[in-house]
């Protein structure tokens, strides 16, 4: 079920009413309703894959209990490896099997040997990367004795399947979400109103910004051969705003929806395009995944505690794995590697924790230095996005080559979708001003103009939204 669909517009109020009117008195009922609603939400897309989620839930619940009873270190390690193998095995099969088969075939044919093996016809279950990482965090935390394993299957199922964040995050930690699920939730008006504001703002980001940018970005990327440098630059910028609006919009709706049920999810985006360096960007972009890799991969590998060389290795590993997590394509791996390369000079010069606060805190405008560093970071990020968006490495390289040919003949090109880029640029500039103005808050609806801003956003949703083609959220494919 899509957040921006009519189905969800019916589903959400119905579950909300049942939750606060019928199951309000009893924690078990509240959690049972969450599980039921979550399975319905997921099954709406494809009910067959419910069994996969249930299997993953049962495995990690059982391993959690087994870990609590086991004191032998080797046995505990075996149980952890069992969970890793099963969860990553399922993820690997559904997401990466064809990638490995195709690459093996290419590698062997390079040496003159042909392998006759067909790729599998596999459907990637929506959200598998997200809930797999979420259940893994539980088992690893239990193994590391940071968390008491739960004996309540319903509560654990609610943690794994919690519908607001089930298919595209934020990837919650058991240490943060499970304690909230153990306690009966009470209705909090301010929290719920805040949730509604986040949902509205998330919808605006998705339907107005991301979907508008998608029309232009798709057109430019699909006919990049005929585009001049200016159009290619705009195409990359549009994709940057498409993916930001799409994914941060989804996260806002997820966090907002969750607030309606009395549950707080972690923040996933903190105005990443206002970052002054790439380290800051990664502290502000897809925070739940970055911190997951930091806590469960980078630190166990030694983090920055060993020699510089070891630290470099660890940095490359997390960026490459993060790229690979996004999809089974070399473009994602190169995207990850490119970000590692951006990060290294900052890390070497110990400047990776220079910009911890939001830019120009308490001020209206940034200073020249901040403006320049934000612009440089944004340029680096959009070069990365070209790899992320392109269908293959050769296309990404050709796109960048054409972009750097500085061919501005014909100026702003007319697109066959009957659009001029200038119109979208105006929309993006307005959006950036809106975001800049609210960068120290969760959403723009604060202060004395909040009702006016709310009406503007509702009017924007009505008149500027893209409703002719309901688009999936990009991160569903990951």
């Amino acid at each position, binding site marked *: 079920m899509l957040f921006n669909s009519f189905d969800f517009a019916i589903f959400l109020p119905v579950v909300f009413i049942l939750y606060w009117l019928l199951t309000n008195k009893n924690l078990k009922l509240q959690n049972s309703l969450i599980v039921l609603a979550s399975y319905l939400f997921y099954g709406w897309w494809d009910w067959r894959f419910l069994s996969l989620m249930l299997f993953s839930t049962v495995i990690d619940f059982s391993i959690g209990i087994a870990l609590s009873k086991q004191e032998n270190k080797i046995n505990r390690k075996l149980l952890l490896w069992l969970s890793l193998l099963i969860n990553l095995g399922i993820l690997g099969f559904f997401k990466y099997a064809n990638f490995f088969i195709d690459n093996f075939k290419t590698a062997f044919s390079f040496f003159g040997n042909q392998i006759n093996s067909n790729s599998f016809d596999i459907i990637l279950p929506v959200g598998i990367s997200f809930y797999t990482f979420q259940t893994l965090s539980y088992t690893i935390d239990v193994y590391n004795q940071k968390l008491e394993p739960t004996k309540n299957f319903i509560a654990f199922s609610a943690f794994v399947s919690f519908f607001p964040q089930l298919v595209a995050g934020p990837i919650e930690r058991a240490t943060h979400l499970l304690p909230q699920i153990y306690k009966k939730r009470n209705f909090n008006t301010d929290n719920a109103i805040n949730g509604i504001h986040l949902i509205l703002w998330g919808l605006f980001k998705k339907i107005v910004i991301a979907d508008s940018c998608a029309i232009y970005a798709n057109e430019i990327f699909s006919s990049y051969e005929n585009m001049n440098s200016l159009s290619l630059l705009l195409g990359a910028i549009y994709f940057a705003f498409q993916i930001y609006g799409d994914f941060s919009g989804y996260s806002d709706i997820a966090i907002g929806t969750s607030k309606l049920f009395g549950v707080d999810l972690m923040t996933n985006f903190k105005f990443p395009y206002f970052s002054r360096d790439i380290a800051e960007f990664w502290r502000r972009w897809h925070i739940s995944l970055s911190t997951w890799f930091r806590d469960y991969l980078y630190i166990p590998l030694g983090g920055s505690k060993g020699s510089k060389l070891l630290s470099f290795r660890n940095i490359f590993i997390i960026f490459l794995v993060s790229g690979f997590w996004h999809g089974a394509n070399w473009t994602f791996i190169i995207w990850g590697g490119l970000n590692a390369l951006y990060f290294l000079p900052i890390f070497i010069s110990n400047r990776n924790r220079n910009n911890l606060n939001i830019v120009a805190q308490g001020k209206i405008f940034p200073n020249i230095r901040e403006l320049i560093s934000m612009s440089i970071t944004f340029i680096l990020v959009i070069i990365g996005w070209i790899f992320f968006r392109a269908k293959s490495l050769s296309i990404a390289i050709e796109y960048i080559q054409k972009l750097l040919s500085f061919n501005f003949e014909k100026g702003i090109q007319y697109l066959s*979708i009957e659009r001029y880029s200038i119109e979208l640029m105006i929309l993006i500039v307005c959006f950036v001003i809106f975001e800049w103005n609210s960068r120290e808050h969760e959403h723009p609806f604060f202060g004395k103009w909040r009702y006016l801003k*709310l009406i503007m956003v*509702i009017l924007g949703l009505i*008149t500027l939204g893209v*409703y*002719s083609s309901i688009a999936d959220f990009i991160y569903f494919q990951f």
Partner: protein
Amino acid sequence: MKKFIKYIISILIITILSLYVCDAIYTQVYTSVTPRNKLQYIINTNNEKFDIIFLGSSRVTNHIDTELFDRLSNKKTLNLGVEGAGLNDNLLQLKLLITNNNKISNLFLQVDTNFENENPSNISISEAMPFLRNDVVQNHLSNHFENFNYLKYIPFYRYAINDPKIGFREFFFSLINKKSRINPAIGFTPLDEGFISTNFHSLPKSIANKNNALNHIINICNTSNINLILFISPYCSKIDSDIYIKQLITKIPNLIDLSKGYDDDLFFNCTHLNSRGAKKFTKNLHKATINKVLN
């Protein structure tokens, strides 16, 4: 909870009011401005006399040089071809022209693979939406759209789901009276040079039994004394049209076949001529119909 419910209700009221206000403003603008598309032009055209009207898809818009045909035939000519339009849309255009007491002597109608489709397409879906209260439009569309009642009664729904054509961008341009790329009073839009090559392919091997929209157009022309001339526009050498066109001519014996005889350098792409091709085609069509056009 009470405070929250009040808040939600107030947001819902603001949203519903906004939908009604936006719908009313959009409709007012689209129905009262200088026409920017051909359907608006038709709806605003009353009691006119046209010697020749062309109807069809982009294979008319881009192919018939209105001024040239006007000069050659010495007759008042109008090109009402619309990109993406099918026969059903042409039927709606004709109904509106006649309802508005316009007098048409000759109607040139492009018929080719559009014979396969009886459903409304481009114009009806988007350009007709602001005119849902018009009786002709309403009667025509209500037969074809399952969601007609949603379109008619849910405020702004008709504009929202057709946002690429009649969304904010088009509304804004209409509001500021921006001149359209296509002048609806002439209707010809020539295409650039440059042949976009495609793989060899063929038109459908089989043909539909009949097309009710076409039959309806023929009936209207008969009852309104309009001389109907049906023709096929050209295809490039990479399209195998022989089998389909042979079957089409069997079904419509008086169909004028001009699908062949054009070099590929006269095409913009395989189904659309460039400006040079359009001139040649206009002259050929005039020559082929010189004895069929009524005064």
